């Protein structure tokens, strides 16, 4: 009998345990969902502002739900779409060309450095990876770009900076090094040349790592505004993000001058139009992120974030 009541008590304890467990799991889910919403919230705020009537935005302020729904901001942008289309073209061009070139430069280097019987592997690796420890920084780089290469105000200035990211080379090299050597040996026996082996065996096998690096590189190009801040003065060459920065800082300057009682500086888009442009500029990057997010999560495990 004692054993029976003991069992009963035990059973009861387990039930409360399970209930507690369920409750705590439930509250953890709530916490994480709140955090996720917190991550999304600022973006929703911008989207909402872009669909708000300009006067309502000035009067009632920013809100998660438009106080007065309106598509005027988008209509205004598409009435004179020249500027944003131009910026889009610049950004798309640099992103596509930059990403392709970056992969074309980084993956052969990473592959060569991953070959154990490459005589120059050690010295070249040292040469490449030392740059992660010490960098001259932005000042010599600025002088190099503007005084020696003289690429300011050219599309080259926007593409060159992210062509080789040494950290990505490191990741690719690790991935190539882990590929089964049997396949490569077999191809060699079949008489395939080294370059052919790289193209038709190593690259296809490394697709996941390549996709991750491609995505990171593409997002680097898409979100880049610092390069234009340093090297682009020609409005024809403004990439999207830099154009966003410029209209924001023009609006700021106008506000400042307005309060002093001066006249406006040029044409400045309304507040809602600026928000709409931010939405249009972020949309493709966010889409890229959502479609390829599994490569990003893989990127984390590969160590693609510093």
């Amino acid at each position, binding site marked *: 009998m004692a054993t029976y009541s003991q069992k009963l008590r035990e059973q009861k304890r387990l039930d409360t345990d399970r209930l507690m467990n369920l409750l705590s799991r439930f509250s953890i889910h709530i916490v994480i969902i709140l*955090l996720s919403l917190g991550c999304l919230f600022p973006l929703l705020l911008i989207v909402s502002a872009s669909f708000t009537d300009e006067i309502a935005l000035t009067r009632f302020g920013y809100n998660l739900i438009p106080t007065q729904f309106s598509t005027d901001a988008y209509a205004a942008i598409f009435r004179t779409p020249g500027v944003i289309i131009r910026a889009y073209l610049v950004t798309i061009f640099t992103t596509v060309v930059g990403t392709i070139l970056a992969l074309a430069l980084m993956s*052969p280097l990473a592959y060569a450095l991953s070959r154990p019987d490459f005589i120059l592997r050690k010295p070249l690796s040292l040469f490449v990876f030392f740059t992660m420890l010490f960098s001259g920084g932005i000042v*010599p780089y600025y002088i190099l770009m503007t005084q020696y290469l003289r690429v300011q105000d050219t599309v080259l200035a926007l593409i060159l900076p992210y062509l080789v990211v040494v950290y990505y080379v490191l990741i690719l090299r690790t991935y190539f090094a882990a590929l089964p050597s049997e396949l490569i040996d077999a191809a060699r026996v079949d008489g395939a*040349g080294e370059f052919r082996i790289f193209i038709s065996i190593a690259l296809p096998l490394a697709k996941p790592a390549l996709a991750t690096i491609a995505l990171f590189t593409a997002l680097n190009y898409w979100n880049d505004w610092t390069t234009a801040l340093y090297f682009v003065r020609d409005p024809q060459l403004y990439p999207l993000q*830099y154009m966003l920065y410029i209209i924001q800082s023009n609006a700021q300057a106008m506000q400042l001058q307005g309060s002093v009682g001066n006249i406006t500086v040029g044409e400045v888009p309304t507040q809602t139009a600026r928000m709409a442009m931010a939405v249009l500029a972020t949309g493709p990057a966010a889409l890229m992120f959502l479609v390829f*997010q599994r490569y990003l999560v893989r990127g984390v495990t590969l160590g693609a*974030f510093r």
Partner: protein
Amino acid sequence: MDASFEQPMKTSVVPVAAPRKRFESLRGHKFSRNLVWLLMSLPAILWILVFKYMTLFGVWIAFTDFKVRRGVFGSDFVGLDNFRFLFATDTALRATANTIFLNVLFITGGLVASLLIAWLMYEIYSSKLTRFYQTMLLLPRFISWVVVGYFVYALLATDNGLINNILRNVGLQPISWYATPQAWPGILLLTSLWSGMGIGSLIYLSGMLAIDLQLFEAARIDGANKWQQFSHITLPIILPLVVINLLLSLAFILNADFGLFFQVTRNQPLLYSTTDVLDTYIYRSLIVTQNVSMAAAAQFYQSIVGFVLVLLFNWIVRRIERADEPLALF
């Protein structure tokens, strides 16, 4: 070296003349293979040479009175004068202090938040939901700082920002945030957490997922509660990961994320007292005031401290790492 030395596998079964020929062709292959690899490396090597090594010579600018038309090596050598001027200004010292203070704030905050989120995610791990949560938490990292600046403005604008609206609605005085420097360490910390905690937590979560479940089972039988399990099993096991991340971020304590400090503060001079960091200071010296020598001096100081700290911390990591689990960078 004798050719036969490279091919010890040869046996007497093979006719004597044949292997010679094969060696030669193999040696030829070996040479051509290395040549191909070298050619494959060249384009990227060239890029690194120009953008990473030629810029190294540029640190010389820090020791000259740089004049654009006289070039890097044509400008007058002035020894340590630039550094003397640099450290004589309050701005550079303030920028250094801000950089260190804010980085310590971000590193501590980021570490606590990432560990906590990783632990929570681990407790409720299910492949589908976790992936959804991860996507949400990672998203902020891929929003450009310009756009982040936009929505921080939507939150903090003095006249119609969301936060001031809320303050007004509950009967409080609105605050002109872009003129209140003391609020900004907190604002920047929140922004940096928003942007970085997804990645941080994901790194620690993948470390936790590698832990043997039997350890927790045994602890549970011994009556350990969740917190005890975390502090006695999870934390010690992922500690190496934590330490290496911590040391890496500490090594770059003088480097700040330019985008965060430039865009989110809208480069507002009223806020410089708490938000001006070395990277924004260097930008201003280089582009706005165009004092290239001064910018170069600040840059060199930042780079050399980073270099020394990386070497130092790598040495420390080598001391504490276990042989079966190498952690050091090099």
